[in-house]
């Protein structure tokens, strides 16, 4: 066992946990304001793709990160218009965003690079010590999210909007504006998480490279009870299982089974250990100004 759990393994865990942490924070912002966030996956994928395109053309991975954040925010804005303004079913429109992202990125890979499903190699983010800067940024974002949600007037309003939007409206808070802002922030965070996948750990875009991490991040958010610190813990746990999966490969166990480890792990955790997860009371309910 000593050979498995070494420093390299720990670093792999942190690397794998980073996108989960950041995307989970995105989930928290949206859901704390009362908007279901099934579209994390699609927004991550969009971000991963935009980062590669911009890094390819500018050779500047930082511009790539910026592009990832903005593009995913744009995607989130579309979702916000559908689910907040037009009160579309949030589950359906979230799934639609995921399908749109999956299809559109494959199509655009073809348009931009003339290849099927995979981009050429691009300039990736430089390492600062053992990690890219995004890995260090993740815990900072956790701290910031915690402070915003629990120590500022704005955070109080976000949580009020997610729990009892009518009460918020009667004291003059614009439920609609708060929700728009939160959904767009969730897009920015998901985009950043996507950039970490494509130009942080790798240096290419591969079709469907998020491979369900958006949903694992969602699971981390629920397991962490919609709290940034809880989500951090949960994301580290899931990152651990992903690192374990990578470590176990080539050990004689069928690879399909090993690849399934993080997902099986996620299901067991969600089914068995969440306990009474209390979602924001108004989660998924569109708000209508009367």
């Amino acid at each position: 066992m000593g050979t498995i759990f070494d420093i390299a393994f720990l670093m792999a865990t942190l690397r794998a946990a980073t996108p989960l942490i950041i995307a989970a924070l995105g989930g928290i912002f949206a859901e704390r304001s009362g908007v279901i966030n099934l579209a994390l996956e699609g927004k991550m994928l969009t971000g991963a793709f935009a980062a590669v395109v911009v890094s390819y053309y500018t050779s500047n991975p930082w511009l790539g990160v910026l592009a990832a954040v903005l593009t995913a925010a744009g995607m989130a804005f579309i979702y916000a218009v559908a689910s907040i303004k037009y009160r579309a079913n949030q589950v359906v429109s979230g799934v639609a965003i995921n399908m749109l992202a999956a299809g559109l990125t494959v199509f655009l890979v073809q348009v931009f690079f003339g290849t099927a499903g995979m981009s050429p190699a691009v300039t990736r983010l430089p390492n600062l010590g053992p990690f890219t800067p995004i890995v260090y940024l993740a815990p900072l974002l956790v701290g910031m999210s915690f402070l915003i949600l629990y120590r500022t007037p704005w955070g109080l309003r976000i949580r009020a909007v997610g729990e009892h939007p009518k009460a918020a409206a009667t004291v003059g808070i614009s439920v609609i504006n708060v929700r728009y802002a939160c959904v767009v922030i969730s897009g920015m965070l998901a985009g950043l998480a996507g950039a970490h996948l494509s130009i942080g750990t790798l240096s290419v875009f591969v079709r469907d490279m998020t491979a369900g991490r958006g949903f694992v991040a969602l699971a981390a958010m629920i397991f962490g009870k919609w709290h940034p610190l809880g989500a951090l813990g949960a994301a580290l746990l899931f990152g651990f299982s992903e690192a374990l999966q990578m470590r176990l490969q080539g050990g004689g166990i069928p690879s399909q089974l090993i690849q399934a480890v993080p997902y099986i792990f996620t299901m067991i955790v969600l089914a068995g250990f969440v306990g009474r997860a209390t979602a924001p009371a108004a989660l998924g309910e569109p708000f209508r100004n009367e």
Partner: protein
Amino acid sequence: MQPILEMRHISKRFPGVLASDNVNISLFPGEILAIIGENGAGKSTLMNILFGLYQPDEGQIFIKGEPVKILNPNQAIAHGIGMVHQHFMLVSPFTVAENIVLGAEPRRGLSLDINKAKKAVSEVSHRYGLRVKPEATIEELPVGVQQRVEILKILYRGAEIIVLDEPTAVLNPQEIKELYAIMQNLTSQGKSIIFITHKLNEVTNISQRVTVMRRGKVMGTVATKDTSPAELANLMVGRQVLLQVQKNPTEVGNTVLAVKDLVTQDLTGEKLLDRVSFEIRAGEILGVAGVEGNGQTELVEVLTGLRRAHSGSVHLNGAEITNFTARQVKERKVGHIPEDRQKRGLELDFTVQENLIFGFHYKPPFAKHGLLNKQGIAQHADRMIEEFDIRTPNSETITRSLSGGNHQKVIIAREMHQEPDLLIASQPSRGVDIGAIEFIHRRIVAHRDAGKAVLLISPELSEVLSLSDRVAVIYEGQIMGIMNSSEVTEEQLGLMMAGIRPENYHPLEERSPVHGR
């Protein structure tokens, strides 16, 4: 004296209804103005206009003589208007302090200054004598205290005009007393209060003036000391209210319902009904009195096929129906008005039409060859709406949007249209306004006069006594005694409801059997 608030010629139209029809009200500094009206009279619409939640189609609002436009709650608050909503606008997992400052938070730099918030809350709560703990979370507080938090919330925002929308609906008698004291204290400190209610006795207890509304119109405004509950009731309903139900003696016929030694138990084996026996004959109303939770619910459930009887028997018109299913019971002409109409009586998000046929939906003329017959259903609905005076824009309206009284009329129409041999009515007037109560009582008596049997269950002693021919008292699942309602006193009933059998206090030498009459 100049009014602090005036609403002049306010009209507001919704699809199918004129919710406010040229309404004028005025409120003077330091007074309590009661606005009274039945459900659906337009009180809440008017207040929502005042609070900027709706815009009036016509009319104007004046504050201290100045015309103002109130486009949203923010502007209402800025004009010193505060509203305590009937359904509390409190975020349950938040603390008292967080709820009070929400939307107008004290800050230190970028962050919320929670200590300052707590201090501000203590300050306001001291000044007005409304004690609360700023650190307590809302969900751990009783409703009376939650309401205090709501009042503090608007005082914190500097409200001068306080609107209380049906504030007593959720309170127990002790809490109501406390609320009155709070209201008096507030007016003595110069606040002006609008008090919305549909209960007559509350008006006379607390207000200086009363504005009566009916169907979107103001019927009149009177000084409380110059009026009487009867006058207000007339204004509210638009005709003489029969506070006493008119009932003539009838001939009783054959036994319709015979219940013998009925027992039902919960999962732990505890008896919820314990050897319950009684009979109801045609042309008779049997009332069941008792403190809620003494087996009334279970009795109705067993009789209507919603719960199993463990032993004993139920006969309807001489045929056994013990443990029949709900449909089988219904097909033997038993109507059921359930105690919780939102849970068991209606599908609130279905149309009035659909709610009018549930339970009969599989039979002609509502269904043919297994398909619903839209035309038959619609025609039936229109007839019912007419006959039972259901106030709805049309039969395809979503039931939820109707008032409580009209919800109940939909159920009554559905359950009575087949002229059931036995009508089981459980708390038929719970939460409905006077006009509807009167209508419901008349229908029940008419049903009995037509030679049918009625089982009436109600925790309201006065309702049971005024409607029933005989009264049974239930206590811990047992029938304590059955007597003629004309011969029994409220005191006797009170003792029996507390579990004391008549033979234990009967002054006569000879003890009469419990079920002897």
